[in-house]
Structure formats: structure tokens, C-alpha cells
């Protein structure tokens, strides 16, 4: 019993730390988002709708994750399957695939800004090929929305790839061989043997990626600024840094936090079910 208490006390610094610097600020945000001039009100939440950036921000905050996560899942699984088959130089290819993820986020985004800006490298190539240069990051355009999702997918496909690759390495080769012996085509083999075994890993990467994709902040901010492609996170940052309005910023960010926690709890339930089926 003494040992048990001893171990419990060792976790205390961590729990106290996260309580003081994570739970307390979160509850404090909840508190000030319901408050204006010393009175309790829903006014901060209602006033969000008066801001012309809020509705686009919510819309983009749904569209960007949808595009980038579906791209990441397809590309990540495909790359993992290909790399898993390769025998020579596999490490080199893994490093090459991981590069955008290993680079500091802000450096990668700065480089993408150089690449996609109006006088950037992609437009240079387009002009060289005799095509019209495109205004990739035009504020508020559909193109810039797609581009932000693409850049996000480019940077985070490696994460999905890494998780799926680790899961693939755990699948015994005999399983595939047996299916082949029984007359399955390579395609059938992938869809009916390999893919079902990857489901826990796929759900794990979906959880990780959804949580990150819904709180997307740096990518739209660096590529297009607050007003170009607004998201809920950048919108809250805009309210805080440009209007100095902490209560409304907290209202927006609290909505986002609640949304993320709801989504991830649904996913976690799915994950547990998938693991149970596996066993």
C-alpha cells in the first residue's frame, strides 16, 4: 500500500502542472466567454455571427479537414504499401517521404509561400511552359482554400504513412502468401486481407489527424493571412491580437475545443470497438 501511494505521488507533478497550465486556462476561457462588463451573458457567442469572417471560418474549418484528411489517408496508405514492398534503400525513401514533416512547420510554410506566391516558383514554371500564371493565394478564392488543404496534406501525409507502415510491418508475410496460394489476385489480397488488418492503425491515424486538422492554425495563417482563408483558430487569434477582444476570442476557441473533444470521443469509441473485433 505504501508503494502504491508512493507511485501515485510521483505522478502528482505532471497532474498539477497540466491542471494549472491546461485545465485552469481552459476553464478560465469558458468563464470569460460567458462574461461581459461583469455580467453573465451569451452575448459573446451571438456577436460572433455579426463578424463577416465567422461563417466562412466555420465553413473552411470543415472543408479543409475533409480535403486534407482524405488525401492524406489515400496517399499515406499507398506510400506505406509501396515502401513496405521495396527491399533496397527503404530507409532513404522513408527519410525522403518524412522530409516535410521533419522540417520545422513554420519553415516548411515559409517555403510553400515562396513556391506559391504570385512571383513564386510554380508560376515561374507555368510561364516557362507558356501558360498563364495563377493567383494561387487570392484571398477568399476557392483556389486558395484548396491550396491550403493541399499544403496541409503535403506536410502531414508522412504521419499517416508512418503509422500505417508500422502496422504493415506487423502483418505476417505468410498471410498474404496463403491468400495468394488460395487464388486471390493481388488486388483482392490487398482489399480483403491486408486492409481489414490495418483498420486499428487507420482509425488511430484518423483520430490523430482529425484532431490536428480541426485546430489547423499555422497553414492558413502563414499562406494567406487571417482574412485570406479564415479558420476558427486564426479567427480567434485575429479577435485577440487585432481587436484585443479576449472574451469573444475565447468564445470562438471554446466552441472549437468542444467540437474537437466531441469528435475525438466518437473516434475513441470506434477505436475500442475495432480493437475488440481484432481480438
Amino acid at each position: 500500500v505504501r508503494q502504491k501511494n508512493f507511485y501515485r505521488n510521483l505522478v502528482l507533478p505532471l497532474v498539477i502542472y497540466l491542471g494549472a497550465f491546461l485545465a485552469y486556462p481552459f476553464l478560465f476561457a469558458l468563464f470569460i466567454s460567458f462574461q461581459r462588463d461583469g455580467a453573465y451573458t451569451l452575448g459573446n457567442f451571438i456577436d460572433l455571427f455579426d463578424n463577416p469572417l465567422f461563417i466562412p471560418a466555420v465553413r473552411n474549418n470543415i472543408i479543409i479537414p475533409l480535403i486534407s484528411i482524405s488525401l492524406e489517408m489515400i496517399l499515406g496508405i499507398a506510400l506505406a504499401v509501396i515502401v513496405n514492398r521495396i527491399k533496397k534503400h527503404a530507409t532513404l525513401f522513408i527519410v525522403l517521404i518524412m522530409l516535410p514533416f521533419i522540417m520545422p512547420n513554420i519553415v516548411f510554410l515559409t517555403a510553400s509561400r515562396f513556391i506559391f506566391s504570385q512571383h513564386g516558383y510554380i508560376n515561374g514554371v507555368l510561364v516557362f511552359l507558356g501558360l498563364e500564371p495563377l493567383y494561387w493565394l487570392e484571398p477568399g478564392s476557392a483556389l486558395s482554400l484548396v491550396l491550403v488543404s493541399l499544403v496541409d496534406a503535403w506536410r502531414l501525409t508522412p504521419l499517416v504513412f508512418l503509422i500505417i507502415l508500422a502496422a504493415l510491418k506487423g502483418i505476417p508475410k505468410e498471410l498474404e502468401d496463403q491468400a495468394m496460394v488460395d487464388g486471390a489476385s493481388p488486388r483482392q489480397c490487398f482489399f480483403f486481407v491486408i486492409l481489414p488488418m490495418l483498420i486499428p492503425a487507420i482509425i488511430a491515424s484518423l483520430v490523430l489527424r482529425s484532431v490536428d486538422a480541426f485546430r489547423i492554425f499555422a497553414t492558413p495563417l502563414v499562406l494567406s493571412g487571417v482574412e485570406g482563408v479564415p479558420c476558427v483558430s486564426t479567427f480567434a487569434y485575429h479577435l485577440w491580437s487585432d481587436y484585443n477582444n479576449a472574451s469573444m476570442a475565447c468564445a470562438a476557441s471554446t466552441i472549437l475545443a468542444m467540437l474537437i473533444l466531441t469528435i475525438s470521443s466518437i473516434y475513441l469509441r470506434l477505436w475500442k470497438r475495432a480493437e475488440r473485433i481484432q481480438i
Partner: protein
Amino acid sequence: MRKIRFGLILLILLGIINIFPLWIIFKQAITSEKESLLWPPTFLPHSVNFENIFMFFKTGETLKALGLSLFVSLGTGLISMVVGSLSGWAMAREPKVGSKVSMFLIIARMFPMVAIAIPLAVIFIKIGLYNHPYGIGLIFAHSILVLPFVSLILYSTFKSIPVALEEQAQIDGCSLIGTFLKVTLPLAAPGIASSFIIAFILSWNEFGYSLLLQVTHRNLSPLLYYYTTFGSTGIASALSLIMILPAVFILLFFQRNIASESLASFIK
């Protein structure tokens, strides 16, 4: 056979695409700003010119940012290493504590940055840690982000050390704390060192909290954002190059160790 060749071509193409941003940063850092702004843009440097890098080391603002980033990353690394190894060890040795705390840590990693950083900024303004010249407030903020990550890594590190060794030491008359210091810690040293490095890198690369908390005393990542948005291409490239260095260094020297550690934590 044909399928593998197709896959290989795809991989090589992707490799070239992925190297491109790095190449752009490198090229712009070692050529003059004038050349970086040429239209149409050049893909190979015409003339090598180190004015951007000299500028980086001559400007007070960038040097201060470099120092601040180093200090904040070291501080975050230290806090996470100490708190993380204590809790990681306890979690590994007491399964009930382990499962409860790891669930708690997974939830802690899900909060969006703005939902914590904005109220934290309001609180820090009151207690004088906002925009702190030595980044003390930022160290606390980065640790929120890094601690759950590092604790989970160290949880698996300590789990891999057999309990029998510790029990033996206790039978031989060692106290619990003595066991930890003399038996467990030396065995876990490689894992703890790599968790320090991961914490350092995570803090070094972090952008959101730094942007919100260091408004005038900027560290490297918000400074880079500042230069990029104001169109100082040359110094932004030099700054980017400097920011990549720790990651490159670590990739070269600790490749195998880090890869396996972080892989384990991603799967968690």
C-alpha cells in the same frame, strides 16, 4: 515486377517534390536577396553570396531571437525530462496509474492551441509572464504541449525495463528512491536523453504559442513569420536555414534511436 517499378518512379518523384522546399530555402539563403526576387525565378543559384547569413549574425533582433529560442527549448526540455521521467516511471510500475494517466494525457493533447494560449496570455499579462524577455512564460506554455508527448514516450521506455531488477535491488536493501537513482535511471538513460532531444525539437519548432505569447521579444519562429509576411525574403531564408539546423543535426547523429522512440509514441 512492373508494379514495383511504377511505385519506385512514384517514390522518386515524391522525393524530388519533398526536397524542393528545402532546396528553395537553401538556394535563397546563399544568394543575394535581389536574385531571390528575380522574375522569372531561378531554380539554380547564379552567384553565391552570403549577405543574408551575414545579415542574420549582424542584426541584434535575430541574434536575440536565436538566444531566446535556445533558452526556451533547453528550459522546456529540462522541465519535461524531469517531470516526464518521474511520471513515466510511476505509470510503468503501477498499471492502474498508468492507464488512467495515459488516457488523461491523450485528452490533454487534443485541446486546440488557441483555446489554451489566449486565456493563458490573459493570465500571464496579470502575473507578468506575458512577452517575458527571457521567455519564462513561453517555457511553461511549451511544456503543456511537450509534457504529454514526452511522458508517453518515457512510459514505454520504463515499461521496457524489467521490474525484476528493481525488486532485486530492494531485496538487497535499497530504498525506492535509491532504486530509481541507482538502478532504473542508468538503464533508462538513452530513452531519457532522446526524450530530452524530442522535447527540445518540439519546442524549437513550435509556432502558435510563441506567436501569441512573445509579441515583441520574439523567438525564432514568430520572427520568421514576421519577416515572411513583411516580405524580407533574404533574411527570412537565412532564418529558415538556421531553424532547420537542429533537426538536421539530430537526424544525422541520433537517427535510429529517435525514429524508433517517436514511432512508438505516434502509435499510442
